[in-house]
């Protein structure tokens, strides 16, 4: 045995190595199961799945892709937060800063933007697939409800992010969107049966004012980077947990 191999063997039999890696890598059935079971990231999977359940032509892979895009959004979003200030004086300048000064800043913002658009599309396709395969039927009813919640959260995440560049596109799109809230029955000041005025209705609460200004920018920012992602992470966790608990990956039960 050469010196190198002996050293390698010693390392792999050391207490430190064994404390980190609990099993070997030989292709045995036991190791295949342990590979999933003893890894926190992989253990959301079962050790085995029915062969036809993992086929792309059955699942379209849309749920997984949506989840991956969400991770992508979190990573690029955190990186963008280093360069972006949610203040009307700076927000737009920081966009230009990202475009012209920050190394790879433009690519970073592009990925964040396009992945967000893609995520809205893939979550809609995922819903379509789940409906077409009847995968909302008992015992998976409640997971469908969680899924619809995640759909709504994705829309809201995307919508709140839309304002942050603070350009004309953002400003007027959010104007169109939030003007509709004025018309909410009872709690919007232009809606039917309104008992509020424009200084205390639901739109004022969302925007922190009667129009889109510094308060609205800050509120959308906090919703976008903290409140909604936290809610999404909780519901994603629930969603995956319930897949395992409610009959596993979609297939005839």
């Amino acid at each position, binding site marked *: 045995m050469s010196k190198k191999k002996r050293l390698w063997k010693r390392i792999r039999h050391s207490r430190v190595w064994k404390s980190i890696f609990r099993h070997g890598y030989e292709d045995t059935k036991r190791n295949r199961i342990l590979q999933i079971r003893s890894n926190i990231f992989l253990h959301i999977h079962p*050790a*085995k799945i029915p062969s036809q359940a*993992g086929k792309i032509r059955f699942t379209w892979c849309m749920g997984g892709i949506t989840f991956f895009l969400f991770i992508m959004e979190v990573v690029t979003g955190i990186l963008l937060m280093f360069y972006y200030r949610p203040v009307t004086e700076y927000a737009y300048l920081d966009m230009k800063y990202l475009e012209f000064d920050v190394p790879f800043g433009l690519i970073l913002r592009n990925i964040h933007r396009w992945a967000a658009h893609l995520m809205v599309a893939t979550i809609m396709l995922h819903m379509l697939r789940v409906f077409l395969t009847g995968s909302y039927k008992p015992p998976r009813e409640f997971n469908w409800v969680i899924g619809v919640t995640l759909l709504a959260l994705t829309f809201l995440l995307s919508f709140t992010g839309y304002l942050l560049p603070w350009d004309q596109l953002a400003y*007027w799109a959010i*104007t169109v969107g939030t003007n509709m809230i004025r018309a909410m029955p009872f709690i919007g000041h232009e809606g039917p049966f309104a008992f509020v005025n424009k200084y205390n209705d639901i739109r004022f609460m969302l925007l922190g004012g009667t129009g889109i200004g510094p308060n609205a920018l800050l509120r959308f920012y906090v919703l976008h980077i903290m409140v909604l992602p936290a809610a999404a992470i909780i519901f994603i966790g629930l969603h995956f947990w319930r897949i395992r608990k409610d009959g596993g990956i979609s297939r005839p039960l």
Partner: protein
Amino acid sequence: MRKEKEKNIYVWPGLAIMEFLTAIALTIILLVWALLINAPLLEIANPGISENPSRAPWYFIGLQELLVYFDPWIAGVMIPFIIIVCLMIIPYIDNNPAGRGEYTFSLRKFALINFNIGFLMWLILIFTGYFLRGPNWQFYWPWESWEAAKQVEENLWSLDPVYGLAGLAAYFGAGLAIPRLISPRFYRKCGFKRYVIVMTSMLLMYAVPIKIFLRLVFNIKYILVTPWFNI
């Protein structure tokens, strides 16, 4: 059919490898996309100069498009609210046990046809709002120039409240009664409560294209006018 296909595979490495490969492929796609096309950035926000047309983000354009046909409290609030609620109750009102976890059309015709019509309507509204609307939200074919001004508003009229109320009552009344008479089997399978919920959500969904049709063909602005709200 299920028995013969029931073969289990190990997730490691089969599925896990596929997931990693998908992640890598997606990363490459996004990277190339980001290198080729820049995210839009217009002039700095200016409350004094409005974009014409100002569009909502594409996934909300369906709702913005509905503003042509409905008042904001319906298009922007009630319709999305009803869509979300109806989506959430689907598993509880669909008591057809067939096609659980598999593709089938013949066993679930009713559910699949109606869901797909709804899905398609959403896409058509997005497409219309995104590609076929010009300044002042007027309708322009893609080959028409936005320079040519469109006639602003046709002569719209509203139904007399009495007729409007009668029309709505007839629509929902007939919509609830006729399917029951035509297919007593469907009614029996549902039971009274489920039948009413299913048919009401269906009637609400199909009321949207009907209102669009009435508006486009007969220039009807409101079906029902009341002092508090208009439909």
